[in-house]
């Protein structure tokens, strides 16, 4: 019965179900492995980062794969999400005891803040044709990092203290706390992220993006990507739909940032975690996983997050091996000869499957 349903289903729906099933199955397997004690601490520590990068990759895929606009500043949106949410939880952690509520508020704040910046950037840039979005998002990522590095906000019983680039001027009373301390970023963030929370976030976000791309709006977005002039001629409001997709994409990256910030007890805006390289890394997840395939993004993000850690045994050579693996994966996925070979193998599988069925 179930099989019949699966066959009569639309191809895209089936595709979605496979993705959801994949996430849930992996989650169950991992949980069983944790409870039975078969998972090393290293792996357990990697679970949340894997979720984080999967989420951000999904967000960027919406922008690159469906909107067709290149963004190389998604680490910037992640950064906004991370800092705004960490700021918020640090402020509220004394008044709200329930961790779930606190985390939900953090997610809301981080997502909205990132969406706001995405929207702001999108207004002028998405009206243009060409690669302007790439340039502007690149600049945004660098600017936001530097702005956070000179931002000082503290709180004590006299209220809030603000300073820009001159943290020394803030005279804090004994029991005052630093909310953002310039280059030191935000320290002592409550640890709220967990693998379960990450997986739930992935599922919710998958639900949102799948519905988005299969809706009227999503089809309009893809029409713009495929042929802007044709889309315009049938009366699609180009800027509006582009802006909508880009804002959602930024918001998802922000949600990833929330998960990132609450996994580590400290968050700083350094070139390694929110810089240009991270943006490119996320783009690599998307390109490797296949543009337009959210499932691919998740798989690529997971594998590429795991890889450098699994290769730790190779010491200093691991980054070398890592890049070689990256090239090999890229070839395996996209080189015409490889695709041919994979199709041949798949065809063989199909044949034998048919034989078995017969």
């Amino acid at each position: 019965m179930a099989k019949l349903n699966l066959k009569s289903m639309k191809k895209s729906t089936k595709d979605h179900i496979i993705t959801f099933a994949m996430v849930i199955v992996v989650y169950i397997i991992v949980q069983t492995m944790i409870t039975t004690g078969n998972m090393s601490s290293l792996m357990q520590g990697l679970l949340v980062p894997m979720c984080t990068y999967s989420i951000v990759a999904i967000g960027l895929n919406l922008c690159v794969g469906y909107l067709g606009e290149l963004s190389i500043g998604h680490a910037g949106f992640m950064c906004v999400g991370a800092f705004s949410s960490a700021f918020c939880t640090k402020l509220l952690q004394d008044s709200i005891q329930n961790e779930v509520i606190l985390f939900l508020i953090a997610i809301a704040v981080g997502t909205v803040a990132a969406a706001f910046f995405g929207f702001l950037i999108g207004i002028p840039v998405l009206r243009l044709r060409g690669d302007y979005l790439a340039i502007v998002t690149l600049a945004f990522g660098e600017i936001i990092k530097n702005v956070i590095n000179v931002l000082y906000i503290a709180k004590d019983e006299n209220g809030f203290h603000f300073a820009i680039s001159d943290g020394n001027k803030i005279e804090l009373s004994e029991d005052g706390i630093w909310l953002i301390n310039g280059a030191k970023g935000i320290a002592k963030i409550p640890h709220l992220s967990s693998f379960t929370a990450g997986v739930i976030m992935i599922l919710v976000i998958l639900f949102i993006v799948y519905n988005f791309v299969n809706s009227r709006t999503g089809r309009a977005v893809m029409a713009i990507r495929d042929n802007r002039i044709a889309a315009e001629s049938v009366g699609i409001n180009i800027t509006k739909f582009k802006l909508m997709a880009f804002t959602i994409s930024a918001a998802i990256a922000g949600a990833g940032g929330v998960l990132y910030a609450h996994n580590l007890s400290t968050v700083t805006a350094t070139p390694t975690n929110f810089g240009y390289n991270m943006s490119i890394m996320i783009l690599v997840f998307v390109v490797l996983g296949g543009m337009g395939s959210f499932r691919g993004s998740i798989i690529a993000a997971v594998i590429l997050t795991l890889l450098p850690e699994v290769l730790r045994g190779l010491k200093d050579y691991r980054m070398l091996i890592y890049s070689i693996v990256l090239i090999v994966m890229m070839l395996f996925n996209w080189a015409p000869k490889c695709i041919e070979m994979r199709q041949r193998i798949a065809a063989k599988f199909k044949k034998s499957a048919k034989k078995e069925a017969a």
Partner: protein
Amino acid sequence: MKKAVSMFLAAALAVGTFAGCGSSADTGSTGSAASTESGSTDSAADGSVFKIGGIGPTTGAAAIYGSAVMNAAQIAVDEINEAGGINGYQVEFKAEDDQSDAEKSVNAYNSLKDWGMQVLMGTVTTTPCIAVADKTAEDGMFEITPSASSTDVIENDNVFQACFTDPNLGTASAQYIGENKLATKVAVIYDSSDVYSSGIEATFVKEAANQGFEVVAEEAFTADSKTDFSTQLQKAQSEGADLVFLPIYYTEASIILNQANGMGYEPTFFGCDGMDGILDVKNFDTSLAEGLMLLTPFVADADDEKTQAFVSKYKELYGDTPNQFGADAYDAIYAIKAAIEEAGVTPDMSVSDIGTALTEAMTKISVDGLTGDGMTWEATGEVSKAPKAMVIKDGAYTAM
């Protein structure tokens, strides 16, 4: 269908990786399976060696510091083993790379836990250290950092520092300049995106007010703009600063010295421990560093026996002159040794028991190391040792 197959393969691969890692940890040490199960690290390996882990950037931009720390720690561990170990137990040391990134540092920490680490010597840089300190507090593991100098690092009871804290260094520098009347007008050039640099700068400026000299310019740069310092230098020059305080690392400092020379601006330059190493910068005319003063706990050509033995060994093994980071790491390992001897712990105890015992012992010990004689520790985790003022004379560090 093709998609389904490829997805299945990918899923299988991912699960395989998980499983592979899980089982390898099982075979690695009998204790760790139990430890992952209970979520704490009460693994004690086979109970015959102390396992000390080290975390620091051995690749990436800060690799110089991480590598120095790991090399020096290895030297210390080898020495201890040669001399019969700690309380008769041999010591094993394993270093993991974190690329100076908080997230990777936690990964490195977890991977060392899988290896059976009992004491952590790390991390080298501040931001990762804050993240890792949180994890060690959860596990009750004893941690001593050789060089993470922010006060945020030692907020947890189980974490100790082998280096000065940033505020201490800033205050000490200001006091030194004030007491020796080196200048009346001082300019500061610092890296606002770096925790170490901005930490020193903040307390330096605060203390300057009490020391009878004036800070006429506070010029910042960031990690993204550290190749040209002409604007900062011009500002310092036009304000008439006769001393420029550089609480930064030596790579940038060498550029500053070069550019100041090009401008014909000749104030006294004054640095902190990050300045150590400037004479080894490639293609840098060391005559420019003549007269440069620095406050540092360690100089490689000091003439005491201990330093000389350490430096010659380091050169022999790694072909390089050790810097202050290495010296701090060397001392950190000996501090661990002293604490273990004081507490009388044995390797078969659980990680958290060792942690508690060592935390207590730490305040009672006194270590004569490379970076100071009679180093002692406060319960807060701060070390107390005296900074030494050095000046570069005839292309060599000389004590003042």
